[in-house]
């Protein structure tokens, strides 16, 4: 690796590249970055680039110049991350992001709970909309609705204090004693361990129901009552 390259680090992100710069003088940094880009035009062409400038203080004209130079090379600068409030302000002024890809809690979230297993519950106080997938090793409790197109996968029990209209898989690692309960049960599909039931017909007068595997090894819904 030659000297200019040691100033910058390039990482691939899910939706673009992250370039991290050192605290060296800005002109050197900028030159190093452009040299790097010009050296591998095919790699950078069309890329979305986020720039981490650590504590570097950048003003509008410097950032605009860089953005334009990158843009001439077919690279779109969309974010500048910095510890310096001045630089952050500059970036915001130019409509650039100052954080990269906020974690997206709604989509495909896996919750890792080591060693606690089924004795832990995940409490979700919101409606799970289409496209949301929750995977959890313990119990899942939802205070809200589970809409069609949302999925919950739990190694233990799932309880929905609301309308269950999406897909729920309880006892996903094979626990046949797991149960699913909801105030209103009209799911797309329910699974407990490896048993699957197709959509249950929505009831005229919805009532709380609990689903478990019965003696015949099939999923069965019954009135959910205390005790």
């Amino acid at each position, binding site marked *: 690796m030659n000297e200019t390259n040691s100033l910058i680090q390039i990482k691939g992100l899910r939706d673009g590249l992250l370039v991290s710069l050192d605290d060296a003088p800005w002109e050197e940094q900028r030159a190093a970055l452009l040299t790097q880009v010009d050296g591998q035009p095919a790699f950078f062409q*069309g890329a*979305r680039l986020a720039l981490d400038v650590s504590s570097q203080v950048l003003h509008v004209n410097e950032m605009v110049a860089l953005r334009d130079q990158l843009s001439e090379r077919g690279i*779109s*600068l*969309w*974010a500048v991350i910095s510890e310096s409030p001045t630089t952050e302000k500059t970036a915001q002024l*130019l*409509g*650039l*992001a100052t954080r990269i890809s*906020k974690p*997206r*809690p*709604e*989509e495909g979230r896996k919750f890792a709970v080591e060693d606690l297993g089924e004795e832990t519950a995940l409490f979700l106080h919101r*409606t799970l*909309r*289409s*496209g*949301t997938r929750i995977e959890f090793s313990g119990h899942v409790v939802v205070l809200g*609705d589970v*809409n*069609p*197109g949302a999925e919950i996968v739990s190694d233990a029990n799932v309880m929905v204090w609301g309308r269950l*209209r999406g897909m729920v898989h309880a006892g996903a690692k094979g626990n046949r004693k797991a149960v699913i309960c909801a105030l209103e049960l009209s799911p797309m599909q329910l699974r407990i361990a490896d048993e699957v039931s197709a959509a249950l017909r929505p009831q005229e007068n919805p009532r709380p129901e609990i689903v478990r595997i019965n003696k015949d090894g099939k999923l069965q819904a019954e009135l959910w009552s205390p005790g």
Partner: protein
Amino acid sequence: MPAQVITITSGKGGVGKTTAVANIAVALASEGSRVVCIDGDIGLRNLDVILGLENRIVYDIVDVIEGRCRLKQAMIRDKKLPELYLIPAAQTRDKNAVSPSDMNRLIKDLRNDFDFVLIDSPAGIERGFKNAIAAADRVLIVTNPEVSAVRDADRVIGILESEEKGPGSLIINRLNPTLVKNHDMLSADDVLDLLAIELIGIVPEDENVIIGSNRGAPVAFDTKSRAGQAFRNIAKRLRGETVPFLNLDSNDGFWQRLQRLAGRK
């Protein structure tokens, strides 16, 4: 006061986003608001057709972003309404020609000169959609009273919530009161029940909408059309007025309930 930036989106295609943008823009501009619409559907532009401005396009949004023209040069003034402008999409490029930060910059330049910036989002939840919502202050979600459109709207609302763009407001488009009465179509209540967001308008099915779109004269100009009235009411609500919902049905209990739902902010 700087402009309110409103993006109209849906998830599913063909539910009437572009028609809604054109009609709401016409209705707002007819009431004296300064309005600019941006066609965010790069590669599949048609907001210009519905507004009847197709033959006036010289420059488009990609020309502005790539610096081939000034912003003002790409803004097409409406034939009838002097306070209504369109920034057309490029037809020969694709969504990747624009980034969310490009949209933010462009809209920053428009904010001080207008009361409303309306952005027509493409269908889907990919790049074009992300561009369209990047600068939005408020998002309107258009859906039809059918299961697949509602499912996609639900997904879009979920994404908007995770991007901190709020849950948005709902337009139920192409509701047919007769079909609803016969239980052959989801009712507005059914849709609201699932999506649980604020309702901003219900537009009845009306053949004048298609006729207007084909002629390049949106139905909001037509004072006799029920759909036109519904779009004018949406525009009034965006301007902060309280307007009762159209009585599409004689069943009062149902509509009173709807109004209560809509009033809940």
